[in-house]
């Protein structure tokens, strides 16, 4: 089935909750209303003829200008060898998208990753905690307006050029060497005039 046919089925079943298919630039996608996503996911997985059993990718894209974070689902069917791309737009201020962990177990870790790096909450997720970053990390790095905190628990993430430190060490070493160097010997006394050359032996 092509993405268009899958989209038609979705549209027939869910109506308004499923947006139009994007103009087929490269990979077309459809925007789904957040509150319907679990129902849509279950339908896509279980409906005979669709059976999208593989949640190939679940990630997000941040769009600060539009004020949304898109959560992107790439779904695929091993049996029918077709796939579809869905998106859910979440409000950027407090992004919340229902978890599809109950439909595809693979979503468990990928939703944790999106939570970690984008700060999208997934109500219904059994174990929503950061996966890559430490628990007490501040901010969500893949958001476009993320500002680096400048370190974590005293571990810096910037350092000056190693050349600066090497140069400083050089100066210290040179100063120490200058201090330890014995005072220069007094200038030698003017050399005594060379003795006159012995007279040439008489022939």
């Amino acid at each position, binding site marked *: 089935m092509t993405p268009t046919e899958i989209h038609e089925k979705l549209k027939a079943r869910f109506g308004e909750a499923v947006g139009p298919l994007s103009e087929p*630039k*490269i*990979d077309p*996608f459809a925007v789904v209303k957040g509150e319907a996503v679990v129902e849509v996911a279950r339908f896509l997985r279980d409906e005979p003829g669709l059976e999208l*059993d*593989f*949640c*190939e*990718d679940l*990630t997000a*894209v*941040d769009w600060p200008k539009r004020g949304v974070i898109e959560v*992107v689902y*790439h779904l695929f069917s*091993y049996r029918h*060898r077709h796939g579809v*791309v869905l998106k859910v737009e979440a409000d950027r201020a407090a992004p919340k998208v229902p978890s599809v962990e109950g439909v*595809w*177990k*693979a979503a*468990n*870790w*990928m939703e944790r*990753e999106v939570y970690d*790096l984008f700060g999208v909450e997934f109500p219904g997720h059994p*174990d929503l*905690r*950061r*996966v*890559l*970053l*430490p*628990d*007490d990390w501040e901010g969500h*790095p*893949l958001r476009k307006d993320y500002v680096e905190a400048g370190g974590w628990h005293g571990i810096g993430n910037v350092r000056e050029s190693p050349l600066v430190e090497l140069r400083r060490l050089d100066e210290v070493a040179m100063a120490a060497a200058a201090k330890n160097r014995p005072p220069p010997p007094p200038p030698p006394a003017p050399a005594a005039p060379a003795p006159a050359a012995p007279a040439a032996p008489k022939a």
Partner: protein
Amino acid sequence: MEKLILRRVGSGGDEMLLNFGPQHPSTHGVINFLVETDGEVMKKAVPDVGYLHRSIEKIGEGTGYPGFMPYTDRIDYVAAMFANEGYALAVEKLLKLEAPPRAQYLRAASGELCRIASHLVSVGTMATDIGATTPLVHALRERERINDLIEELCGARLTYNYHRIGGVAFDAPTGWREKVLAYLDHFDGGDTPARSFITEFDRLITYNEIYMKRLGSVAVIPREKAIGYGLVGPNLRGSGVDWDVRRDVPYGAYRDFKYDVPVGKGMAGTVGDAFDRYYVRILEMRESARIVRQALEKLPEGEYMAKVPRRIKPEAGEALARVESARGEMAYYVVSDGTDKAYRVRARTGSFLAMGIIEDLSPGMMIADLVALVASLDVVAPEIDR
């Protein structure tokens, strides 16, 4: 601050909490498992990852499109060719261009050599983790020779940076083809398979009775679970799913080759056990050697780089490209906003998803079998953390 992972373990009984890793030799990189154990039997093992997180996806938003290529090497440094190739394919899809045939064949040949090298590390370290020290040395010796060949091709032994958007960086040097074919004859024997390295390796360890008993019916992943948890590549095929991106969603030169896709058959016990995942890799190495032979024999003449504009600026849009990496399907999702920098680069890797299944499989397993499970999933820490 309380570590949140501790909430996943510890029911208040007498179980012992054990940190397995992050610096344990059999975790294949810096991964930690928090193991709740009653004697030798685990109640649960919770993976704790992120020690190697370098925010490569964020870096991809800052470099230009071509500038990101060397970073992709660092996503999976055991099989960097595929990380290169996936990114190149995704951007090519955005640009609507295709690499010339010679480049596609060189990609296939170098990629399959790289797959052999990666699988050699996988099967070698797996034997070591189980307790057989010798096979790793044999496997690494062969991998060094493949590294030599790849070094002649692209100048690097580990982080290849060989692919370019629209082709490959270098043509094959003079005499490379003959060297590779001679090596393959040594590797899989050509006409005399009995005298090949891979047969020797099979005799050394694959059909070793202790090894088969040690791995057979251990850490069984049934078919449904493998699909549900999103296992890919050899791990998925080990569970009996006949699926290979190269054959089923062909890309590049792969439609032109003949090869088989090995699938786990429960040779040492149950379908989907650790031995099946191991044996699928052994069989895949033979198939990879076949593909390299065909690619080099049919290697077309011509350009190895397409005509690519100097400044790469795809029009706004998004594309997903998938390749069959040594660790299974690797998907790159690239979003362009019409500038010369990617708006979003996403690398979906096989190891990351494979880690998700461990907590589910661990209850009731022996600690020593956790080692077999992790080794058979062939996870590579930088690919999990990116």
